């Protein structure tokens, strides 16, 4: 192909704008690389750099300010054989900074062309993240109170594997772009250019001044040795291929027949680290093995190693509607924190409620039938109290039976874990009070 430029839509930049030269340089690079138009995508966002996608006969996606890299990443991951080239201005660089950093860290095979012209051209020449502090721009004095960023330096520390900085007027720009596109990984080309519509009206910026600026700045000429590593997409696919397939979904048939199937509402009140959720899970699987429906609501702190852990279980021969607890049939109180979390519950309990309480736990006055056990006396460790309690209630046929519980443990745990779990469960299964 002689040119990728869309002759029906020629560039529309202000006279003297560097973007026009860069447009041509991109075209020259695409031709030199002999890329296939249908395997090439131009992704742009907002600002004058966001016009680029319209000038080329390639696939194109134009999106929101600063987000071009996110669309580009989605396209590249979904279809790795595409050449994905992104244009962004210094405005997009600021608002989309998190995406630039993520792209540097990931090293997905994308090429980012930054069209840095030191200001927001389209909206009135306001300052951007690259505007020098001494520039005169459309944001009055605000840029004087800040300093500009050096995106190449940031990209280097962010892990970019290929970085180049050059003038938009540099005659070798097409070759630099070729190298950037050929690089297998994330490549950044920062072009410094003139915004004749806004910036150069009030600031002495010429191609020569840009060359001098580049002289003074750290040099970036492509490969960043210290960051070299495999490309993200390949890495991802490699790792993904090593992942084990998900085990078949566990489906439990009704295998036990309870003659007197009544709805049960069980509340386990404990603390983080007591494996309350695991215990709740076991009760539900046990119930399912007898043809019950089950639901489990858990309440624990965001800081998972501290605070209360409460599990609320409903076991019902009928479909479960409202999944809140209304009249518990069984309450297991294993820690003060857990009790405090549901303190209002106790005054409402009926004598028909079976309340198992660890000796050290204090509970408010209640009409429930309270059974107290000193778990320490049975040499049960705190993290096993919940599991041991299940043995106790199953031994009394409160909601679940021993054979149901045994089935649940067998289905959910690996054999070695099952053996130790069933040991714990048996400790309290046969005590009579």
């Amino acid at each position, binding site marked *: 192909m002689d040119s990728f430029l869309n002759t029906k839509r020629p560039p529309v930049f202000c006279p003297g704008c560097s973007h026009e030269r860069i447009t041509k340089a991109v075209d020259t690079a695409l031709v030199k690389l002999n890329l296939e138009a249908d395997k090439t995508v131009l992704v742009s966002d907002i600002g004058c750099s966001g016009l680029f996608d319209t000038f080329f006969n390639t696939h194109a*996606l*134009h*999106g929101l300010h600063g987000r071009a890299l*996110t669309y580009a*990443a989605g396209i590249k991951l*979904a279809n790795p054989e595409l050449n994905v080239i992104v244009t962004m201005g210094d405005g997009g660089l600021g608002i989309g900074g998190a995406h630039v950093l993520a792209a540097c860290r990931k090293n997905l095979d994308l090429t980012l062309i930054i069209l840095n012209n030191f200001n927001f051209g389209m909206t009135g020449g306001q300052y951007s993240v690259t505007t020098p502090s001494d520039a005169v721009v459309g944001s009055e004095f605000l840029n004087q109170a800040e300093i500009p960023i050096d995106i190449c330096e940031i990209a280097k520390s962010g892990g970019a594997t290929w970085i180049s900085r050059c003038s938009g007027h540099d005659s070798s720009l097409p070759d630099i772009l070729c190298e950037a596109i050929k690089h297998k990984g994330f490549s950044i080309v920062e072009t410094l250019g003139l915004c004749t519509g806004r910036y150069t009206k009030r600031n002495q910026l010429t191609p020569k001044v840009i060359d001098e600026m580049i002289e003074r700045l750290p040099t970036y000429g492509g490969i960043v040795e210290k960051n070299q590593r495999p490309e993200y997409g390949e890495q991802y696919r490699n790792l993904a291929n090593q992942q084990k397939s998900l085990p078949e*979904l566990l489906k439990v048939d009704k295998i036990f027949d309870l003659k007197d199937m009544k709805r049960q509402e069980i509340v386990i009140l404990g603390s983080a680290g007591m494996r309350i959720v695991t215990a709740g899970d076991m009760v539900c699987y046990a119930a399912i093995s007898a043809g019950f429906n089950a639901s*489990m609501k858990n309440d624990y702190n965001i800081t998972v190693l501290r605070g209360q852990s409460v599990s609320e279980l409903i076991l019902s021969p009928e479909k*479960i509607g*409202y999944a809140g607890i209304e009249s518990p049939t069984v309450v297991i109180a294993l820690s003060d924190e857990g009790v405090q979390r549901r303190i209002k519950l106790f005054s409402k309990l009926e004598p028909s409620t079976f309340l198992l309480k660890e000796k050290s736990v204090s509970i408010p006055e209640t009409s429930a039938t309270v059974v107290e056990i000193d778990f320490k006396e049975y040499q049960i460790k705190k993290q096993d109290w919940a599991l041991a309690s299940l043995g106790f209630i199953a031994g009394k046929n409160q909601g679940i039976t021993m054979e149901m519980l045994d089935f649940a443990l067998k289905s959910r745990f690996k054999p070695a874990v099952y053996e130790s779990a069933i040991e714990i469960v048996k400790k309290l299964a046969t005590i009579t009070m």
Partner: protein
Amino acid sequence: MALSFMEGNEAVARGAIAAGCSFFAGYPITPASTIFSNMLTMLPPNGGICIQGEDEIASMGYCIGASMAGRKVLTATSGPGISLYSEQISFAIGSEIPMVIVDVQRLGPSTGSATRGADGDIQFLRWSNTGGLPVVVLAPKDALDCYALTAHAFNFAEELRCPVFIASNKEIGMTRESVDLDSVELPPIVERKYSEIGKDEINHKYLPFEADKDSVPDFLPIGCKTLVRQTSSTHGADGYITIDPNVIGESQERLINKILNAEERLTLYEENHRQGADTLVISYGVTSRAVEDACKTLSKNGKAVSTLTLKTLFPVPQKLIREKSEQYQHIVVIEMNMGQYVENITRLLPEKKIVFYGQMNGVLITPAKIMEVIQNG
């Protein structure tokens, strides 16, 4: 009947896989994170892609890119995240990019309460796009619905080329329940309609947004033989910026009508009509479970009350609501928010007295409260 035990969020992931989803991007947030973690166990071993975005905006961007490359995509978040999604939601709606967005709602506003449920985002989902174009919002009431509605959501998204929202709730997403997934009859899977010519050969006539009046443009993915343009800017059929008022006006009308005209096809619901009832309770989401419990008890006690559970909230199932309400003297609406949907019902039934109860305090509305509202109504 064999039962499994899972939370609503896992059921969403399983529904997505069943619908052919092969791409997920999301950012961790309680109570939606387990959709991400489930997708992460399900997609990669099967050649799918599952990505953790650097933020919510990026997650949506990844999904938009992947969808435009032809993938069926899913993302999931909660209140603070859906707020950040909104600029990309507008893009996906205005530029007809299919995707499924799950909002596992938590108590708001703002960061609110990460582990407390609410249906507080209903109006946000409806109006989260600038331009105010209509959207499709589905509301599950339990884990089984999460599974089935996710499959429906993918179908609607592919068919109408739009994002489809699932308004889940912490109380569904993170509540584990016994479910029989095999009992659910999933809808036949709908695939995106591609342009007949153009994928593997160049179709010079293809225009990415050309469509008949009120219908959906044929799709071609970025990366196929025919060059494809996508843009967030106001565009004509060719995908280039336009300022032609006629073109813009027609396009806006088409974006509105392609959704509104599909009202009946999109209407999903459950009803429980009870003989002799003079009251109908309309609700959605997890609240409808307590409503059903309440009405069951009332019926046992001699007061028959019927229920209508909306599974499609938007486009408002107007025909359904009018038809199902016709025979009832009293209409009761219950919501787990301070009244975000009820106005859609009062608007449709101006001749009826409508009793509303809303509650948004971090806990489920109890059947007892609902009975009280119905009886005092």
